[in-house]
């Protein structure tokens, strides 16, 4: 097996996967550095009574190779439609897109050979065994017979399903099925893996497991991961995030960058005398920042909040007020979403934010 020179996937594997890069607007869409690139992508469907439903309205997206890219938006924002366009399952109404260097309209077979996709409601044949499901998929993707057996064993191992390979799929748990679905998509060694709501319908433990698994796979294979989600803490773990609402891209950047754009951290202090502390803080803080004193203590919003904590503490100490606790909380992605759309992503589960 001679690795051919200049092979894309190998080059992608060599890229530092966690590298965070800002989108570079001036570059042409065919830049080989991009795993996914779209310009003015539009998809509309005929709706009821002769109307036109615009699911995607002019999307410009650049996803670098080896990046884990989150596509964040509420249900019905156009996330799944965008994935269908990028996988050449649906034809764009206008605009164009390249995935793994191939055009989705003119080279759909090449695109599909290069991508794997985990659908929101993916399906396995429940009557067949784990191994049989994988073999059928491998043959559908045209793998030669001698490769099918080897690849099947190779993808089962990281999925932790080797000892279950002869089990019928209906005997697997939800998390195992999801891992099997991911394993199935790796059979043909895709360079871009689309994951449409990969953890929907799983319990928190299984969700954490799936993410652990995805991160391990990404570090191992160097594939580009394109993840749609409406779970904020899942987006938090990605290299870059694009926020989509109503078929439009409303913001794009690193989780940190997006939050920094919204700006201000919430600095909260608990002191021995909150009433007086409020006055002291108001003097020490920038002039146009309202200081609130409530049951939680004294708090205000300032940019770069953690840098303010020592200064505020020093001012309070100088006035003889003891500081019991101080915290600076950066804006959440929900704040970011609210900032750009005026609404909150309501379906956020009540789990603690990621932000490893």
């Amino acid at each position: 097996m001679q690795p051919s020179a200049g092979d894309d996937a190998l080059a992608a594997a060599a890229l530092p996967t966690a590298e965070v890069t800002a989108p570079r607007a001036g570059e042409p869409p065919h830049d080989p550095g991009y795993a996914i690139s779209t310009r003015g992508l539009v998809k509309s469907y005929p709706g009821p009574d002769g109307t036109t439903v615009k699911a995607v309205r002019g999307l410009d997206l650049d996803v670098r190779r080896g990046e884990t890219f989150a596509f964040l938006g509420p249900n019905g924002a156009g996330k799944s439609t965008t994935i269908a366009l990028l996988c050449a399952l649906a034809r764009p109404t206008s605009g164009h897109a390249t995935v793994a260097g191939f055009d989705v309209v003119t080279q759909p077979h090449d695109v599909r050979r290069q991508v794997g996709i985990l659908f929101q409601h993916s399906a396995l044949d429940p009557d067949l065994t784990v191994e049989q499901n994988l073999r059928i998929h491998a043959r559908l993707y045209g793998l030669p017979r001698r490769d099918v057996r080897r690849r099947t064993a190779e993808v089962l191992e990281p999925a932790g399903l080797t000892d279950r390979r002869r089990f019928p799929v209906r005997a697997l748990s939800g998390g195992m099925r999801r891992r099997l679905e991911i394993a199935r998509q790796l059979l043909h060694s895709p360079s871009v893996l689309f994951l449409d709501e990969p953890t929907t319908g799983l319990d928190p433990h299984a969700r954490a497991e799936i993410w652990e698994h995805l991160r391990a796979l990404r570090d191992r294979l160097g594939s580009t991961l394109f993840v749609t989600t409406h779970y904020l803490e899942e987006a938090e773990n990605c290299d870059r995030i694009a926020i989509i609402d109503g078929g439009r891209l409303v913001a794009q950047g690193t989780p940190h960058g997006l939050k920094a754009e919204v700006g201000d951290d919430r600095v909260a202090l608990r002191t021995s005398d909150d009433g007086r502390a409020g006055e002291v803080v108001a003097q020490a803080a920038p002039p146009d920042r309202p200081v609130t004193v409530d049951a939680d203590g004294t708090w205000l919003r300032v940019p770069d909040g953690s840098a303010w904590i020592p200064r505020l503490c020093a001012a309070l100490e100088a006035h003889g007020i003891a500081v019991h606790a101080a915290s600076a909380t950066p804006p959440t992605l929900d704040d970011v979403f609210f900032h750009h759309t005026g609404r909150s992503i309501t379906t956020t589960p009540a789990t603690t934010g990621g932000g490893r």
Partner: protein
Amino acid sequence: MTALTLQAPQAAERGRAPRLRHELRAIHALVHRDLLRLACQRSHTALVLLQPAVYLFALGGGLATLIPAASLGTGYQTYLFPGMLMMTVQTPAIMVGIRLITDRQSGYLREVLMAPVSRSTLLLGSCAGGTLVAAVQGAVLLGLAGAVGLPYDPVLLLLLLGGMLLASFTLTSMTLALSVTLRSPELFHTLLSLLMMPLLFLSGAFFPLESMPGWARGLATVNPLAYGVDLLRRCIALRVPDQAAVGGIQWAGRQPPLLLEAGLLLAVGGLTLLWAARRFSRPE
């Protein structure tokens, strides 16, 4: 770790492999799936095979004493046999259509559509799988030939198997065309249960076409099941002339040549499949 990353160059080489080989592998995948399902759903297969056997012995056994052999040219059970063979291949043909609809609903179809091959190939694969499963089940029922007074003549069995393959191809194509068009499973089921019994009654499976009124005979000449039954019955007549049944398809009072009937079934099946494939390939 290296084992996984080093797969990529091979994938790139595969991209340059002949296109046709990929399409054939995809067809093989779908046929393989149908055969695996057949193997793991033994109880379902047994039930599918039980139905025609029950008709053959319960209905055929009861009516055999009432219907004189002279009016049919052969005993009633022997007369019924080709019809029951058709019934056997009809069920798996319908199952292919149902599977397409349930696969669409479960999301499995989308998974299949992601394969880097043309959609016509995928439909062809489904059709080939259904036809093969039908033939396998038909072959099992052929084992009953002795019980209805037919000899285990290898040529006769091969002819009947060939006839069943042809008929099941046509039927599978037709149900596929139907299931590509109708996306609602309820509509599909209702339409099929509405159509299947009349089609079977108007096929000459249970009683000779010539004993039916003129309009029914007219309908029979456009009933693919009737051609299937007629084809099988004439195969029997060819090898076992003393068991030859009366009647059958007639065009303006004359029996069309056997090969023309077979060609017609093949052509109808092929054209239907082509139409279904075109419809299936329409971009969304």
